């Protein structure tokens, strides 16, 4: 759950100029000042790229086997040979974390795609067509908020045999609402702005106005939101696998790894904490990137 879920975007506040009021001051040099991203952004981007690479090609990073038990190595603390230590079956944790990235990231990615495609479409339609269709769509979208994502995921897992897919779909559905809401607000703001009016008064067709003016100007707020949602999905997916509703063992998955380390918390802290830290780091990185993508608000 994030503020993104709740659909609070910065999209919406048009600055009005009263007749007779003098013009507000602008940057004298005229250039649109764009803040260069700080080091935090680059670190976050690097982390995400690495983890993405893990998900796509884990064997590039580690040659060890994440699944086979090596009893002689069990419960080893982090060392040169095993940077993340080993678990109760002697498996190298780092290898398992690398391989575990796939399940988590791909599930989160699928959910984001679903939410993005459906949400953008609904928001665009609701904002452009307006009228009763807008009302209906927004009502439906609001109703989707009534079932929290985690619960929806659990319900779908109960109904489907593939737990991972079930979670993805459920999260995607749960994420539609926030994106549709922001997209619609953005579209309305752009539509009511004068340059669209001006285009209309020149005689441009509605469809070309949509594509040329409305869409490019509305996408901005969505971008930051998607990246944040991605991070939140990862948390929920991890929670699901922690509860036992993820990929079946022995396939590695971060949440499940935290769970299995539970009983060894006192003797082998690395089993729970390192995968959990990994989750936190990935989510933090997505949030940092989203922060950079956030359209600059007028208040600093």
């Amino acid at each position, binding site marked *: *759950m*994030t*503020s993104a*879920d*709740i659909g*609070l975007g910065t999209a919406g506040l048009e600055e009005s100029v009263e007749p007779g009021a003098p013009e507000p001051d602008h940057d004298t040099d005229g250039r649109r000042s764009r803040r260069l991203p700080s080091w935090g952004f680059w670190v976050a981007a690097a982390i995400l790229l690495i983890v993405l690479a893990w998900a796509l090609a884990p064997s590039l990073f580690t040659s060890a086997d994440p699944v086979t038990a090596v009893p002689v190595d069990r419960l080893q603390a982090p060392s040169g040979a095993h940077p993340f230590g080993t678990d109760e079956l002697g498996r190298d944790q780092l290898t398992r974390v690398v391989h575990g990235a796939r399940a988590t990231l791909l599930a989160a990615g699928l959910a984001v795609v679903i939410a993005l495609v459906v949400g953008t479409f609904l928001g665009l339609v609701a904002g452009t067509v307006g009228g009763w269709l807008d009302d209906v769509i927004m*009502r*439906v979208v609001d*109703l*989707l*908020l*009534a*079932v*929290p*994502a*985690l*619960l*929806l995921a*659990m*319900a*779908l*897992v*109960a*109904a*489907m*045999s593939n737990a991972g897919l079930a979670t993805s779909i459920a999260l995607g559905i749960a994420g539609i609402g926030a994106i549709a809401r922001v997209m619609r607000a953005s579209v309305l703001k752009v539509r009511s702005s004068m340059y669209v009016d001006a285009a209309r008064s020149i005689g441009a067709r509605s469809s070309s106005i949509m594509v040329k003016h409305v869409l490019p100007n509305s996408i901005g707020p969505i971008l930051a939101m998607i990246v944040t949602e991605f*991070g*939140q999905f990862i*948390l929920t997916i*991890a*929670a699901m696998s*922690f*509860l*036992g*509703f993820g990929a079946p063992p022995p396939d590695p998955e971060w*949440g499940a790894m*935290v*769970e299995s380390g*539970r009983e060894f*918390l*006192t003797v082998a802290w690395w089993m*729970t*904490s390192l995968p*959990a830290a990994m*989750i*936190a780091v990935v*989510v*933090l990185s997505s*949030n940092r990137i989203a922060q950079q993508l956030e359209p600059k*608000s007028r*208040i600093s």
Partner: protein
Amino acid sequence: MSGGFIARRIAQAVLVMWAAYTVVFVILYLVPGDPARLMLGIDGGASASEEQLDAIRTEYGFDQPLVVQYLDNLVKLLSGDLGQSRSSGVSVWTIVTDALPNTVALAALGLLFAVALGTGVVLLSAQIRTRWLQQLLTSLPAVGVSIPGFWVGLLLLQFLSFQLHVFPAAGSDGLSSLILPALVLALPASAVIAQIFGQSLRSTLSEPYVDTARAKGAGRARIIYGHAFRNALLPVVAVLGTIVGAMFANAAVAETIFARNGIGQVMVAAVTSKDIPVVQGVVLVVAGIYALTTLAVDLLSPVIDPRARMVATTS
């Protein structure tokens, strides 16, 4: 407040419930896969015999056309019949109402913690003048939103219960057993509240009417608490329903870690055993709680925000 306004809000709450029911129905009965098989075993019922499958089908009406099933179940729902648990045979209604009070207590305390913590961190950072401390406080919500709640729960359990024996490790009785799981629920929610409230407070403080207060000679504290606070709280109140709903869902994790009885644990067990009626029951209850919270917020909005009073009296 006009009767029409109240009636409309209640109708909305009912609509939410109906929508939740439909969503659950769609998920559970339309998803590809034989529900009968699903209910018979974790292995997808692959080992079930045809007679067993048929028995399930007749018992639960899976052999009926979907529309009939939908309406049938709806009617039953309206009369309070949520069916029986597949695993235990106990009425779903009983299971749910037995488990609910525990979770409500948990969520209530969690909400209290979340609001106190979330607004507290923001207010503190608005008043503190030391740079580094302020930076630290403002970055807390971002971290809070990123840390897996279940990990925090495990750590709290380990250190405060097992090692330091400050709080009981398990069980559902007594206030002291509530505190740790409530904290686990509160942490992510407080981070979200802090983010919303923080952004809202920042934008409120830059509003022209705050300048007017400054021009009157009001000091920083008076400006924050006398003017900005109430205005900034509005967006948080608006999303209270979602926050509460999410808490109930996260109760699944908290109750599992601390071995508490409650809706969350019931749900986890039901999902594991593919006990569809119970799953349906829990989802409906949580949706109901969301609807009730949102209704309460809506009905209270004219009290909190005078600008909403006109809407309430004329619509």
